[in-house]
């Protein structure tokens, strides 16, 4: 007994003595070789000099070409055919290469296929693969690999969630349902380097879909050898610019340059590390400490502070997504009552909502399809031109005409799910409705999956939060949401004329006609008011000013292979940067802060132009923007930071991710 007593006391002493040096050691662990000057300020880069090919000259490149990218969340998988969600998509774009690729500004460019033909009826695509493309183990990438990949992706046994991307391909639906064997999928290897894909319908956005991971090839031998463990480091054989070297779950995923990649000479970043920082303020602190050069988002309440302290680092640009409120048209009080719905729509001051509520410069929206899709401009409703006072007057008139008044106010529920912005938007809308019309709206916050279920069932909902961020830059992706009976038609909107127009859009091959049809379709939808457009999403992130080669694009696709670090300009410039210089610099390299009109648009536009005959899109590619041609002085006036950069999508992260991929 005695000894026991002494032991415990001695142990105590030992622990104390041990723990002190441990703490001290920890405090010395300063492994911060990064480019931070003072309190989280990043040093400026040297001026970018490009060679004739549009690539940076070696003299301006930093010695260490290592990118640390915040990826928001742990990817669900690195199996391209099972992938869903943004985190997987970002990494897979670096690891694999589809038939088509994307330029930094988001334009469709040749990927594994160097060129392609589209038949006159738009139903047969013939892809000519690069003969110099290799897998990361040195095997050649052949048409057979793509056939194998596409068949695996469509195979019911794979249970791919995004196999629906393949649905435009001949027999894809039958293969997916198990009615036909995978060999019946409309995909054929004509020879080692020629691939033919036959379509069910002409699908003008098909080339854009081909950069989606569901269509990536997989290396058959390693898949057969490793089975479900084929996506682990050491096992994964990929055909993109990078190979997987390390994967510590929920800590980091390390990619290193793939020496066998056909364009490896032009890949400058040697190593890319992806981190799953779920907490945006943690990511921001890591960024400020110089440990990250790219964040997936920024905390949604810090716009003003970031804009003031990190004008060079904060990058905000429009995203291909719309945020709106939906009406349930199968439930009172909104059945057959477009005037009442219009009254609610008009009563909301979008400028106020985006300025005061979302705050990151989201664009007020009056339509369904967001701006930024090449060659498509949405119909502008009449009321979009009115002043807010006029809108409110009309709203009051319609509200009274629908039989509501102060004594007999309209009552309904607004459903939304977790996420700061959703709540704020619902609150703001309900108080505006109360203020302008005297409407009594009740707020209902629901857990995410509960919310999804209620919205889909259309039994409880009246007004609810909704939004759509598209996988591909085509208005059809948005318009199709309101098709009768479509699984994501939460609105109960059913209009046979609208459905007929959608069918015409799907079958139309002539771009100008298709555009007109889509315009007509959207006009019809807007006139029926099954939803309340609110704003267009923006992406917002912190990027180290020395990281170049990438550009803002509406798809928010950013390939590491296009990026590179410039040398720090510490030698020439004093550490304390003058305000004036900061502005000049920000403008001089302003690719990151494009105004909406200047945003390059991927996908559909390119395809539409290509519809006639043989296409060699390679000539079209422009790997780098002409940013160095811009004159800093004029840019300062053209692009005031406040106006062009402001904007934050403060909606729920989970939802964003679910919606996107």
């Amino acid at each position, binding site marked *: 007994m005695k000894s026991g007593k002494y032991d415990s006391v001695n142990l105590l002493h030992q622990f104390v003595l041990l723990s002190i040096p441990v703490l001290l050691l920890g405090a010395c662990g300063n492994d911060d070789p990064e480019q931070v000057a003072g309190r989280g300020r990043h040093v400026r880069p040297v001026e970018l000099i490009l060679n004739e090919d549009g690539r940076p000259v070696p003299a301006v490149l930093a010695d260490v070409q290592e990118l640390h990218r915040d990826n928001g969340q742990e990817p669900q998988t690195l199996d391209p055919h099972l992938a869903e969600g943004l985190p997987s998509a970002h990494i897979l774009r670096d690891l694999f290469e589809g038939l088509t690729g994307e330029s930094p500004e988001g334009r469709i460019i040749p990927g594994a296929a160097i060129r392609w033909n589209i038949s006159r009826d738009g139903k047969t695509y013939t892809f000519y693969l690069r003969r110099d493309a290799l897998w990361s183990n040195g095997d050649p990438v052949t048409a057979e690999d793509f056939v194998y990949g596409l068949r695996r992706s469509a195979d019911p046994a794979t249970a791919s969630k995004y196999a629906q991307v393949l649905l435009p391909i001949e027999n894809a639906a039958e293969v997916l349902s198990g009615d036909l064997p995978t060999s019946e999928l409309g995909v054929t290897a004509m020879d080692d380097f020629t691939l033919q894909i036959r379509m069910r319908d002409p699908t003008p956005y098909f080339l854009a879909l081909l950069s989606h991971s569901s269509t990536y090839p997989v290396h058959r031998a390693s898949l057969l050898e490793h089975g479900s463990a084929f996506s682990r480091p050491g096992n994964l054989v990929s055909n993109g610019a990078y190979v997987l070297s390390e994967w510590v779950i*929920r800590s980091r995923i390390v990619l290193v340059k793939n020496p066998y990649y056909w364009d490896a000479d032009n890949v400058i970043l040697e190593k890319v590390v992806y981190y799953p920082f779920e907490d945006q303020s943690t990511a921001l602190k890591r960024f400020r400490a110089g440990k990250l050069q790219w964040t997936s988002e920024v905390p949604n309440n810090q716009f003003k502070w970031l804009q003031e302290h990190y004008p060079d680092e904060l990058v905000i640009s429009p995203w291909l997504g719309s945020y709106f409120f939906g009406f349930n048209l199968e439930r009172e009080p909104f059945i057959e009552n477009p005037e009442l719905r219009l009254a609610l729509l008009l009563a909301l001051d979008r400028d106020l909502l985006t300025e005061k509520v979302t705050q990151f410069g989201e664009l007020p929206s009056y339509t369904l399809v967001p701006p930024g899709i090449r060659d498509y401009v949405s119909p502008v409703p009449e009321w979009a031109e009115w002043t807010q006072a006029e809108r409110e007057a009309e709203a009051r008139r319609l509200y009274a005409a629908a039989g509501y008044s102060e004594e007999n106010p309209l009552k309904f529920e607004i459903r939304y799910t977790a996420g700061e912005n959703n709540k704020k938007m619902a609150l703001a809308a309900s108080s505006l409705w109360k203020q302008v019309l005297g409407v009594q709206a009740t707020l209902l916050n629901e857990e995410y999956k509960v919310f999804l279920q209620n919205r889909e069932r259309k039994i409880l909902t009246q007004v609810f939060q909704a939004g759509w961020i598209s996988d591909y830059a085509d208005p059809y992706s948005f318009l199709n949401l309101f098709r009768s009976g479509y699984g994501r038609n939460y609105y109960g909107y059913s209009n046979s004329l609208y459905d007929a127009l959608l069918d015409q859009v799907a079958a139309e091959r002539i771009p100008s006609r298709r555009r007109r049809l889509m315009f007509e379709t959207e006009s019809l939808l807007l006139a029926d008011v099954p939803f309340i457009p609110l704003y267009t999403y923006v992406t917002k992130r912190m990027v180290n000013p020395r990281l170049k080669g990438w550009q803002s694009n509406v798809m928010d696709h950013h390939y590491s292979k296009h990026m590179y670090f410039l040398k720090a300009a510490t030698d020439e410039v004093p550490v304390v940067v003058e305000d004036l210089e900061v502005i000049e610099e920000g403008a001089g390299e302003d690719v990151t802060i494009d105004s909406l009109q200047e945003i390059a648009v991927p996908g559909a536009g390119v395809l539409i132009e290509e519809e006639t005959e043989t296409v060699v899109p390679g000539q079209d590619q422009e790997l780098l923007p002409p940013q160095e041609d811009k004159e800093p002085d004029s840019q300062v006036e053209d692009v005031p930071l406040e106006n062009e950069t402001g904007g934050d999508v403060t909606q729920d992260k989970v939802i964003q991710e679910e919606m996107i991929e």
Partner: protein
Amino acid sequence: MIQDSGMARHALWRLLGLIPTLLMLITVAFFLMRVAPGGPFDTEKLLPDDIEANLNARYHLDEPLLQQYFRYLGQVAVFDFGPSIQYKDWTVNELIRQGMPVSLTIGVAAMVLAFIFGTLLGITAALRQNTRADYALMGVAMLGISIPNFVVAPILILLLAVYAGWLPAGGWDWSIASMVLPVVTLSLPVTAYIARLTRGSMIEVMHSNFIRSARAKGLPESVVIRRHALRPALLPVISFLGPATAGMISGSVIIERIFSIPGLGSYFVQGALNRDYTLVMGVVIFYGVLIILLNFLVDMIYAWLNPRVRYDKKR
């Protein structure tokens, strides 16, 4: 120390009791998860029926619920928690195996830290009862208890990582530098709690008769404290250790999130939100076993420290 057979028999019974407890835990958790609306594959995007059927078939979600339940029990019996629905490249076993060392390290380190500093501070305060030092220490302890982790953590990160640059601002690489902030943050409220607990019981013990006798025998004060007061004074702390350690290992969700630590805590939350049935079940079972074992361990230590609750006398 535990040589008595009564004690050993008691220990055995307690361990056997683990099985029905776990069975109940599994049953309740299994059906509660299924009662929650929505499923693992519900998202904003439309899932064609065929694809949903393929997915359900893959995870056996197309079978009747009872069949799924017994299938699961059969799996658990051989320690196979199945594939994670959300993290498709990994099985639940692999996820737990990777997360467990991290959670254990942080939890145990924080607990050790809290125990050492908590008792030292508590004893110090108790021996200087109602002096300025006592008030100061207990004031600080009160602050430690009341200020939540999610306030302390960002402040520490800002000061020590962003401004001073001494420590990483999050992330985990098994270096001591990456452990300091999360461990310290996690241990602070428990340290404070233990300090208050120790102080209270120490004061009580110091006023008891046997301490008076010891002093009357002419023992120096240091011996009185070490030999006679310390052990009874620590008893309430010991009984607090079990649930506190379990809480630290399992309840560090906030710390894990703020510091981006790949522990088990967030699997719980993420798994539940995503309706990742297999992952949630695996973590629930793991925590269940852990909590039961820790409580068992603490009871044993308690009995060893306190002869009055020995089990051999009654049996």
